[in-house]
């Protein structure tokens, strides 16, 4: 585990120095001018940020010092590139970020106009926009349908280095596909991966997305998602987090078109001193849409989770159905789960609710299993697997489902 207490609050001077930026830009002189300008602008915005306030509501309950960059002052020089594969890429654009900038930069030309999902780490987002050298771009054309899974594996850097990554997912009208994003570490040493995923769903498109985070237990994972849903589109988002020493997820879903559907679910299994910080927002700007959020955390040892969710319904977003559920299962006396479920409702024709519960394993359930001769630890594992099943059983692919259940099971068995 990271000796996190030593990490100081102040950002690292490397990322603040213009020499450092110039060396970086020099190395990437092959990029189009607008992208260089965008990187510079983002960096200037980063410099101009007001000093981080100690009491920021977006960081409530979160030991912010654990997310600092000071232990990771260097950018990785030649890290492992993201791998991409799929059986059926004939009509789909599926490339690494660098290849996209080289071959078809026009796909990204709207980048400067992308929204900034401000759920607390605007500084991470701006650093990502300045220094992103990795990531992937996926663009599905109109009417595209495929049964095969698009897979990408992305790597956190080794040896106390930082890595910034930007991903782009565009679905053109009436297309549908399934994407599996994995995040892993290159080796067993500690590193920081700061990741931004920009997701744009055009009219009536459907994205099924599974994100699996299994960084090593020394590393830091920072992850932003900015999702825009147009009319009639649908996102089924499933996030599975098993790895990292500390991870912070900021996920913003903006419902911009009528009749869209946003399903966001997540599970975290925390062991040892793992920290899972999750901030979400379901923002309804358009009427007649649904959003459903289900975040479940099971925590062992001294693990900690923070869930902060917000449902925002604008005055024009009548006939909205928005739900938010956070369930926490505490399996040890030192485990901690903090919940900040929130609602901001400005329309009256709505059905909105949130629920948050935190408790231990039901005594009767445990007794039932024990009385059948199953050891306590195994019984607890079975209950946890059952607890998570509500989320992961939404995954349609049986192989992936089996693989996930095995990974959860072996993570549970990790010696503390």
């Amino acid at each position, binding site marked *: 585990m990271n000796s996190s207490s030593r990490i100081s609050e102040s950002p690292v001077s490397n990322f603040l120095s213009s020499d450092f930026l110039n060396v970086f830009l020099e190395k990437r002189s092959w990029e189009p001018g607008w992208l260089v300008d965008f990187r510079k602008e983002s960096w200037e915005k980063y410099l101009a940020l007001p000093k981080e306030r100690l009491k920021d509501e977006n960081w409530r309950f979160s030991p912010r010092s654990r997310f600092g960059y000071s232990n990771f002052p260097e950018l990785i020089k030649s890290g492992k590139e993201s791998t991409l594969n799929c059986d059926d890429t004939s009509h789909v654009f599926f490339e690494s970020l660098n290849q996209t900038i080289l071959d078809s930069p026009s796909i990204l030309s709207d980048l400067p106009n992308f929204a900034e999902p401000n759920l607390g780490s605007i500084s991470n987002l701006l650093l990502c926009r300045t220094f992103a050298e990795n990531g992937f771009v996926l663009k599905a054309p109109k009417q595209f349908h495929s049964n095969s899974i698009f897979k990408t594996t992305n790597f956190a850097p080794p040896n106390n280095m930082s890595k910034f990554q930007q991903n782009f997912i565009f679905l053109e009208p009436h297309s549908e596909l399934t994407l599996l994003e994995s995040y892993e570490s290159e080796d067993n040493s500690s590193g920081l991966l700061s990741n931004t995923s920009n997701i744009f769903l055009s009219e009536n498109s459907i994205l099924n997305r599974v994100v699996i985070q299994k960084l090593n237990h020394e590393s830091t994972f920072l992850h932003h998602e900015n999702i825009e849903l147009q009319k009639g589109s649908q996102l089924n988002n499933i996030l599975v987090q098993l790895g990292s020493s500390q991870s912070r997820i900021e996920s913003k879903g903006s419902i911009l078109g009528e009749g869209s559907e946003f399903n966001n679910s997540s599970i975290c299994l925390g062991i040892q001193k793992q920290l899972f910080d999750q901030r979400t927002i379901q923002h309804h700007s358009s009427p007649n849409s649904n959003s459903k959020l289900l975040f479940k955390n099971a925590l062992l040892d001294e693990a900690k989770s923070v869930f902060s969710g917000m449902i925002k319904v604008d*005055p024009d977003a009548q006939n909205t159905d928005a739900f938010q559920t956070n369930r926490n299962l505490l399996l040890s006396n030192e485990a901690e789960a903090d919940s900040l479920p929130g609602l901001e409702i400005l329309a*009256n024709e709505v059905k909105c609710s949130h629920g948050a519960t935190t408790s231990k394993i039901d005594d009767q359930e445990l007794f039932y299993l024990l009385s059948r001769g199953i050891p306590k630890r195994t019984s607890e594992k079975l209950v946890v697997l059952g607890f998570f099943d509500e989320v992961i059983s939404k995954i349609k692919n049986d192989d992936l489902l089996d693989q996930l259940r095995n990974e959860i099971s072996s993570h549970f068995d990790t010696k503390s």
Partner: protein
Amino acid sequence: MIKPSNIEIDREKGNFHYPTSSYAFDAGIGLSAEVVKYISEVKNEENWLLDYRLKALSIFEKKPMPTHWASKDLENIDFDVIRYYLAQGQQPSRTWDEVPDDIKETFERLGIPEQERKFLAGVEAQFDSEAAYSRIKEDLEKEGVIFVGPTEGLKDHPEIFRKWFGKVIPSSDNKFSALNSAVFSGGSFIYVPPGVKLAQPLQAYFRINAENFGQFERTLIIADEGSEITYMEGCTAPKFETSTLHSAVVELVALKGSKIQYITVQNWSNNVYNLVTKRAIAEENAEVRWIDCNIGSKLTMKYPGVVLKGRKSRGEVLSIALANDGQHQDTGAKMIHSASETSSNVIAKSISIGNGRSSYRGLVQIPGHLKNCKNNTECDALLINSESQTDTYPAIAVKGDDNSVQHEASVSKVSAEQIFYMQQRGLSEAEAMSMYVNGFVNDLIREFPMEYSVELKRLIDLEMEGSVG
């Protein structure tokens, strides 16, 4: 052409304003160390209390406005134009005859006739800073119940009150508790001796009468072992052109096995900033209940809390908030569990009418070393019009595998089917709406004492007028 004459409206309804020109003590406008010294001097306070006030003033000046989470509307409070102390120089009166006529008239307006009062156990009414009328039935005194103002309490009974004064809510708790600690005047200090169970509730009525006058009352209730007390406060203010500030601090101490029930009906006029800090400490087996109803004010920020300090103690907050045009009711509850086997319950219902906004803000905290703690929180919000707003911001921090917490919140609007059903039975749309809203809060209103629940229903009907159509 005939010029249309102005429509005559009875503007007297809800006008509680009476001329005030004869204050004997007036600390002037604005806040400074001089004002604090003046208040302390007028009250003939001991040195430690003056020091306490001055220290609180410096804390107030240092603390920033909590606008990083609270409404930006707070920035509109101009502390320099507020009067911090006004009093007519009267001592608390003991009989109704001694109460000055103009104050009597105010009470008549409030709808508390003299006859009715005689049946009430004790009424302490605060007219601006000092208690204008205070009476305790003799049998209460015989039982050893102390029911006095803060000045009297700290002077005459220091052995009882000084020990707890400022301990439940330290002056540094927040900006407004610091302000109150610096300039407080008036309020109630109550001590109930061991085993004494008060059958009748004690009451206090607060009101603000002078323009730009902030009211800073201080309440401290100590229920000794095994005792029981119910305290009720109601608040009104006349309508003024400029905004006024009300910032109270209420501390409750429930010792072993005692029960305290604190009931508030807040109906300040719609330009009052109502920023109140209320907190209780519950010792072993004690029970504290906050019953809180907010109908008036421009902005209310109030989150009654219970620190569950003793084993098996219980805390409860029942809250009703009604936000009409231009109002923001920012209310909630805090439950701090710090002993095993404690339980807490929060039920909050809010109604937003017109462009009114109601918010629920809560905190539930259970540390890991505790066993068998339980919390239940329910917040329901009802939106009447399309521009009404509601927010919910709970915070729940739970550690350990032997505690359980559940939180639920829902937002809904008035069901068209139910309104239609009632209209079919011959009710007008407005009547049906009123009945629906009263039904929504009915299970909480039942918890209020009789005279309050009747008044509450009437107040809700009044607020609902003209909200349909």
